[in-house]
């Protein structure tokens, strides 16, 4: 062997650079300039989407079932059959669980026992967004806290951060647990977190969120920044409360509680 160590290292180094350059060339060839895209013209737009839930209009079991079924069937939300694996976008709970710290034992029984419809609050200062390591969850310019399932790595930091329990994790493949799949909307896969999106796909088509549409006026959706919007009118005419406002996340789902006669 006439090759010495120095020559051997030189040859190896040059070969590695050559292979690297060939690889980089392959990667660069695969890039594509930005394509032209635009928002839908007939889509609904707002500066700050918000929701008012009028509890006076929730009277029967059917009132809750109708909105939950509408949301969960459109968005392919599975029914896992047990609370540990439960996946939910909209659900219900009692006053003392929904508004902790605001309960007292002299509240009307009707309110104590009443179920409150709950969903993601699309906070102004979303704790889930701050902790997400991949920016899979982020706040859109219209205030909607969106979830990009393509980026979610399933770390569940957001679930720990959310004070409202609005996020669910897919511990199992959800597909076998979806009774009837909506072919126009994706499902999720095992290992990602999901939640309510304020129906971004419907807003883009000019439609109101499914729960608002099916609620017979009990859920009102609109622009918090527009003083003439339906939500602002309701907020200025009624006393409303939000969930855990002391945490400073600024929820954008408001509740009109009403009195015992309405509950």
């Amino acid at each position, binding site marked *: 062997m006439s090759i*010495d*160590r120095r020559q051997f290292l030189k040859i190896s180094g040059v070969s590695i650079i050559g292979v690297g350059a060939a690889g980089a060339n392959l990667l660069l060839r695969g890039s594509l300039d930005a394509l032209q895209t635009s928002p839908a013209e007939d889509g609904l737009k707002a500066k700050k989407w918000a929701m008012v839930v009028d509890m006076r209009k929730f009277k029967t079991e059917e009132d809750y079932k109708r909105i939950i079924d509408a949301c969960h069937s459109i968005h392919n939300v599975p029914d896992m059959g047990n609370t540990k694996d439960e996946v939910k976008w909209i659900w219900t709970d009692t006053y003392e669980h929904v508004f902790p710290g605001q309960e007292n034992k002299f509240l009307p029984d009707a309110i104590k026992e009443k179920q409150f419809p709950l969903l993601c609050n699309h906070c102004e200062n979303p704790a889930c967004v701050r902790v997400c390591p991949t920016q899979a969850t982020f706040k859109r310019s219209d205030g909607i806290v969106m979830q990009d399932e393509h980026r979610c790595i399933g770390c569940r930091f957001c679930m720990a951060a959310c004070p409202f329990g609005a996020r669910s994790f897919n511990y199992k493949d959800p597909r076998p647990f979806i009774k009837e799949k909506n072919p126009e909307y994706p499902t999720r896969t095992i290992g990602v977190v999901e939640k309510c999106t304020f129906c*971004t796909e419907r807003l883009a088509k000019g439609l109101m969120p499914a729960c608002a549409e099916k609620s017979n006026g009990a859920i009102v959706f609109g622009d918090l920044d527009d003083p003439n919007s339906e939500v602002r009118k309701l907020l200025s005419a009624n006393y409303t409360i939000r969930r855990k406002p002391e945490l400073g996340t600024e929820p954008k789902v408001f509740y009109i509680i009403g009195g015992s006669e309405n509950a």
Partner: protein
Amino acid sequence: MSCPARRGKKMNDAGKIIPILIIFIAIAAFPFYYNMGKVSARPEPKLDTSAIQELTEKQCVESKEFMRANHMQLLNQWRDAVVREGKSIYVSSNGKKYNMSLQNTCMKCHSNKKDFCDSCHRYVSVKPYCWDCHIPPKERKS
């Protein structure tokens, strides 16, 4: 500068290292020369769905050549535009507008996933995970 001490220093164990390197390259390159000269059938993605037959102008959102080379980047940009930027309309290079949706636009025409998407993907052995979440159109079992 000369460095006589280093010049010509013997490569230690060259007699072992070089044969082992040659054997390593021979093993690593095995798939290439094993398959050399063997031709497997070229995939022919089928375009014979009823939705495509009904089109007067049989044109995808961009030209066939563009789609063949760039559909993966196009789909990635569609995904980010819809999910992250809240945009849902694609303006193609000839000015036509399309709703950016894999399930509601692409697969409405290409309703034959098995004979269209899968035929090439299987050939080049790529496994895109689109269908882990996105629902493919219903096809008859073949």
